[in-house]
């Protein structure tokens, strides 16, 4: 996996690395390596860098999927990445990327944004402060990955500073650079560098996502339209290349784009035509579930939407992403209301979400009361808030549910009730409309009643014993099926460490030796018992 051509340079790098590592240890005199550079060097090691340093890890890296290595490394280095400033990135670029090597484009791109003179100044300071670590420790194996990583960090910084046009430019260039690398690698398919190309995939996915974020902020409809075509093509390429990360990220970006534009039909077509790769990361899966849940809710497929959204909430990370969870929870509440179920009270009081979910609490209470007039009042009060959340259209469909809930209440509490009363309590316009509504409710199976037209009242039937029907069986069956599928999924998802079976074998062998004896003892005991019985 290691490039043969770099053998000669490897020793030089090892020498320099050895210099830099002691400098990291001597904390009192010289400060340790800037975190970005430290992470980058770690990646170099992980990908089987200098031959001398880690021979054993080389053997492993031959069998490890480079994408997995990158993913794990990304998660460990995210701490360093979060604190990086523009200067840090440029310093790292200057130090780590070889201007004459593979990453010339990326380096130029990263350094070209500010004046080179100021760069040199800061570099001088860095040099003065950190002695030997300023000597360029050009990366060889991990060069392209670190280059893409630094570009993605720079873009994110620019995005945070709201410098959207620049961020977009950089993103486009970054994507072009990575695509060039991948082209390169696929051309040299027989050379040793080819397998490493797949390690660029997570970075490609990141850049696409950052680009989608920046275009959203720029808000140019023509740009959106162009990008949509490009994203579709890139998605195609990613599926062909089995690039799971990019495929998943692009699918989510496209769905988000279409939803922002309120194009539900198109989003639905995309959803039905594209499959989401099973092995993509959990976060992408969460996003995908959220978007599919939202599309289904808008298309009146409430049960599907409900299961997707509950799964999404379950899989969402619990320590970050509060905003995402609030949005998902909001949608879940609305879908529950649309299905006719009242969400539990404690859902509204989850930590951190109380203020956000408060309008939904009042709406739920109105629905539960079953009074249409109250419901309309609450909705008009909260209209602006709902529009901002994007749930206004969904909530407006709830009138039906309000009536159902109200009717159910009346049905349970009264055995006979005049239609005029029904109209008043439900906030319906008139007695005749109440008659129609009750008739429809009976047809829909909401209540079991008969209307006596001349006398003008409705009479409820006695409640049928539920256990006499097959409903409990079906309810039980649904739950059992769900538990069994979860169990099977869990069993399939378990991973054992490779030596675990040895330990088990040892343990069982020991146990058997002991058991042999105890078997005899047991046999004796049983005989004694039998004797006693007699």
């Amino acid at each position, binding site marked *: 996996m290691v490039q043969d051509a770099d053998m000669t340079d490897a020793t030089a790098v090892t020498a320099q690395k050895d210099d830099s590592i002691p400098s990291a240890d001597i904390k009192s005199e010289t400060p340790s390596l800037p975190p970005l550079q430290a992470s980058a060097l770690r990646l170099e090691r992980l990908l089987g860098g200098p031959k001398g340093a880690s021979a054993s890890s080389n053997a492993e890296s031959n069998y490890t999927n480079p994408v997995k290595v990158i993913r794990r490394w990304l998660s460990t280095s995210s701490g360093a990445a979060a604190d990086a400033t523009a200067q840090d990135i440029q310093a790292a670029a200057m130090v780590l990327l070889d201007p004459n090597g593979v990453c010339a484009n990326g380096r130029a791109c990263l350094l070209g944004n500010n004046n080179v003179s100021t760069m040199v100044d800061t570099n001088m300071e860095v040099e003065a402060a950190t002695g030997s670590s300023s000597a360029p420790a050009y990366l060889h194996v991990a060069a392209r990955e670190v280059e893409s990583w630094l570009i993605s960090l720079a873009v994110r910084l620019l995005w945070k500073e709201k410098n959207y046009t620049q961020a977009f430019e950089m993103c486009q260039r970054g994507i072009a650079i990575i695509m060039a690398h991948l082209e390169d690698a696929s051309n040299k398919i027989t050379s040793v560098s080819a397998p490493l190309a797949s390690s660029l995939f997570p970075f490609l996915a990141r850049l696409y996502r950052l680009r989608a974020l920046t275009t959203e902020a720029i808000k140019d409809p023509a740009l959106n339209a162009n990008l949509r075509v490009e994203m579709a093509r890139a998605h195609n390429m990613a599926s062909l290349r089995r690039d799971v990360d990019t495929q998943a990220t692009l699918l989510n970006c496209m769905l988000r784009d279409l939803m922002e534009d*309120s*194009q539900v039909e198109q989003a639905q077509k995309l959803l039905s035509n594209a499959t989401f790769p099973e092995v993509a990361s959990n976060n992408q899966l969460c996003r995908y579930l959220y978007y599919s849940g939202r599309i289904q809710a808008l298309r009146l497929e409430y049960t599907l939407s409900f299961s997707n959204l509950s799964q999404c909430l379950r899989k969402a990370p619990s320590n970050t992403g509060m905003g995402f969870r609030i949005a998902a929870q909001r949608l879940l509440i609305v879908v529950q209301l649309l299905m006719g179920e009242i969400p539990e009270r404690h859902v509204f009081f989850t930590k951190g979400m109380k203020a956000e979910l408060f309008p939904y609490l009042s709406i739920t209470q109105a629905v539960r009361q079953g009074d249409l007039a109250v419901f309309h009042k609450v909705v008009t009060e909260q209209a602006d808030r709902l529009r901002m959340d994007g749930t206004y259209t969904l909530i407006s469909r709830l009138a039906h549910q309000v009536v159902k809930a109200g009717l159910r209440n009346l049905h349970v509490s009264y055995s006979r009730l005049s239609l005029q009363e029904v109209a008043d309590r439900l906030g319906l*316009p008139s007695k005749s409309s109440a008659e*129609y509504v009750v008739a429809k409710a009976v*047809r829909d199976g909401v209540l079991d009643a008969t209307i006596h*037209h001349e006398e003008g009242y409705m009479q409820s039937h006695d409640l049928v014993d539920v256990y006499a029907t097959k409903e409990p069986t079906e309810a039980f069956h649904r739950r059992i099926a769900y538990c*069994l599928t979860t169990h099977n999924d869990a069993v399939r998802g378990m991973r054992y460490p490779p030596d675990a079976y040895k330990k088990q074998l040892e343990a069982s062998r020991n146990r058997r030796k002991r058991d042999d004896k105890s078997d005899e003892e047991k046999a004796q005991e049983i005989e004694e018992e039998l004797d006693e019985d007699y």
Partner: protein
Amino acid sequence: MSSISSLLQQLESFVKAGNIDQSKQSLNNLKVALLHGGTSDESAYALELGVLISVMEGDLQAFARNMAQLQPLYKSGVSTPRKALVTGLNLMHLLVDNRLAEFHAQLELLTDLEASDPLTSFPIALERKLMVGIYDEVGQIPDPSYQLFMDHLLQTVRDSIADCLEVAYQELPLGDAANLLKFGSKQELLDYVAAEREDWIMEPDKITFAPPPAAHAASDIPSMEWIHQSLTYATEMERII
């Protein structure tokens, strides 16, 4: 070759006069002219007039075709004075066809301003009332071109009301039944019942609805299904243990 705008004006005058054949002719000429160049505004105008013509004719397929051609134009931002009318007509069409998913998808695309326009708010309010079940208050239609859909709708609504009546009432006097079903006279009611609802027992002054079959026969128990379910449980438990 007369210019596009003059063709447009000609078409509009035909449509206003209600002259269907000539308007269709004119529309075809206009479409050919537009192929050779014309702004999207003009295409939108032409297609909208096409929509109105198909409504006048009662040709729902032509209506759907013209709408399909209009949608991309609207999406790209073209806005004409008739947009609200045509959008409202489209909503009515979807509602009558009971394509509720597409109805709601279209709703998403409307901005608030457009949704408050009486031409579009009419179908929206109508849909809400129909969901709830208030069939009697239909209100004034905002434009004569909606009449086509209202007629279809009345038919569908009548069928649903009849279904509800079957289940909710045990018996009903004829006069009241005619009112509830929105018939003008008892004779219409009798015709309808004779044509569609043969299981209603007609008596001189009232209708009795046959009670739904309440037999709980042995064939009601879905035995095969339950056997299948129990077997699945057994195999799964076996696997666990």
